[in-house]
């Protein structure tokens, strides 16, 4: 009983079990068979199971909802996927099942869109449009029985099948809940991030770091202005004040991204991001963030040095070069600010990743498709019959 002993809230386990039992009972009533089939009773039980499931989701993981539109869309799409999935699983007529499957695919595509995967949404719609039409053709070709038939009006072990399936789902949900509890406990004990667990996307920057990077971005914009490098009398600020300003930016960036070891009067040290993420060396996400931090560090040294040179020695300095470097630095700072978000150019980045990191898998998938085509032709070939 260790499994249940670690649960802080026994109500949650009861809710999951109730939802699974209701769903199993509903499926038992809905599945086509000669006796005890009740569409009304089964629908009521499945709807009740969905309601209990939703209540459990809200109670276990729900938070106050600042993002109303996103929440409403998520509820619509997931209810659509689950509802039409139920229709597909219990529908007597396979043609109607194929239509229900089309709606399941559309709802899943809505969820993909909410998860920032527009290319996958389009690809899934395109591929399954073809797949569903082919399924229709097969239904029309092979399954044209007018009256009741064994395959459509009978079910294998409806009670045991639904109980087994939904017991499996209940166990998965229970494991999810326990994982969430343990992750939440670890986070509140460590106190590294005050944000709640499993936000989408996962918060990489602390709010303080994000605010510092935002400040640095607005201040860097001023360095890109021509007026900053003009004659002190015309600009209205003394050389000393401008040096102070550049020094302020440097300190802000150093606090987040760390002090470069090559600097003349600087000490060797790490910024706050590095200190937080250095422990996760093998994590892909942490590695990517640390790379961006390194880029900001290098660029800030060269760019701000050029700006300082331009201010102190206007005869030798080149304001255009300094401005170009500052623009690059500002881009990198903004990229670091958005670390943890998916890149905006979904298709381009997917393509880059496919052909840079997963080239062998792409080749294997192509080979698999070829083999499957040959296999399908070989299986469906009529031996000994002239075409």
């Amino acid at each position: 009983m260790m499994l249940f002993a670690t649960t802080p809230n026994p109500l949650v386990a009861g809710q999951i079990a109730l939802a699974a039992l209701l769903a199993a009972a509903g499926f038992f009533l809905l599945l086509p068979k000669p006796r005890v089939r009740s569409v009304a009773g089964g629908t009521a039980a499945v709807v009740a199971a969905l309601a209990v499931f939703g209540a459990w989701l809200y109670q276990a993981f729900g938070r106050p909802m600042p993002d109303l539109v996103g929440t409403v869309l998520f509820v619509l799409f997931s209810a659509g996927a689950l509802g039409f999935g139920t229709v597909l699983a219990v529908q007597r007529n396979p043609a109607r099942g194929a239509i229900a499957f089309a709606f399941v695919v559309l709802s899943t595509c809505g969820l993909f869109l909410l998860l920032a995967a527009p290319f996958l949404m389009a690809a899934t719609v395109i591929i399954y449009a073809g797949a569903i039409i082919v399924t229709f053709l097969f239904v029309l070709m092979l399954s044209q029985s007018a009256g009741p038939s064994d395959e459509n009006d009978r079910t294998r072990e409806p009670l045991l099948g639904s109980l087994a399936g939904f017991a499996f789902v209940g166990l998965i949900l229970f494991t999810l809940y326990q994982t969430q509890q343990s992750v939440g406990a670890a986070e509140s004990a460590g106190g590294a991030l005050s944000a709640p667990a499993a936000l989408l996307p996962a918060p990489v920057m602390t709010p303080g770091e994000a605010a510092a990077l935002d400040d640095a971005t607005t201040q860097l914009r001023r360095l890109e202005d021509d007026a900053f490098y003009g004659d002190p009398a015309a600009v209205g600020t003394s050389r000393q004040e401008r040096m102070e300003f550049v020094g302020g930016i440097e300190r802000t960036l150093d606090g987040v991204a760390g002090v470069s070891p090559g600097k003349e009067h600087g000490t060797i040290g790490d910024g706050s991001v590095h200190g937080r993420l250095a422990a996760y060396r093998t994590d892909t996400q942490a590695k990517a963030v640390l790379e961006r931090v390194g880029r900001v560090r290098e660029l800030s040294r060269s760019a701000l040095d050029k700006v300082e040179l331009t201010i102190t020695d206007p005869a030798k300095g080149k304001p255009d070069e300094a401005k170009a470097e500052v623009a690059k630095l500002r881009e990198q700072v903004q990229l670091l600010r958005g670390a943890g978000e998916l890149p905006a150019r979904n298709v381009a980045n997917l393509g880059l990743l496919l052909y840079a990191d997963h080239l062998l898998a792409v080749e294997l998938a192509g080979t698999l498709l070829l083999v499957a085509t040959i296999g399908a032709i070989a299986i469906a070939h009529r031996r000994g019959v002239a075409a």
Partner: protein
Amino acid sequence: MIVLWHYLAVAAALFGIGLVGFLTRRNLITMFLCAEMMLQGVAINFVAFARYHGNLHGQVFVLFILAVAACEAGVALALFLMLYRRRKSLDVSGWQELREVGVPPSLDADPLVSVPQTPDPVLTPAGGRPAPTAEDAVRV
């Protein structure tokens, strides 16, 4: 706020519905669609984790799932065609002689209830049937 756990829970439920359908239904085409639905549930998991970790590896994996699903569909539908040619039926239980030795066959005890269907109404023809002309044979 919708967090990662919500997506994982919905994906698990979708997978479970597909699993029940695959275990209990007897029509080969419906079983195939239920298996595809289980794949959709898994794909939601991958895409949610891709968003959570801020990289695209999960989405790439879903692309490979799509490729494997296409292969599966091709081979499965070719197999259905072969099975249908042998038995003239899409019922998987028609192939239960392939079961393990010693397992009793599953027999359908209850007779199928056929819903009495009212025949479509037929209109009584109004007027007389026109006499065939010489052109009719050519037209048909």
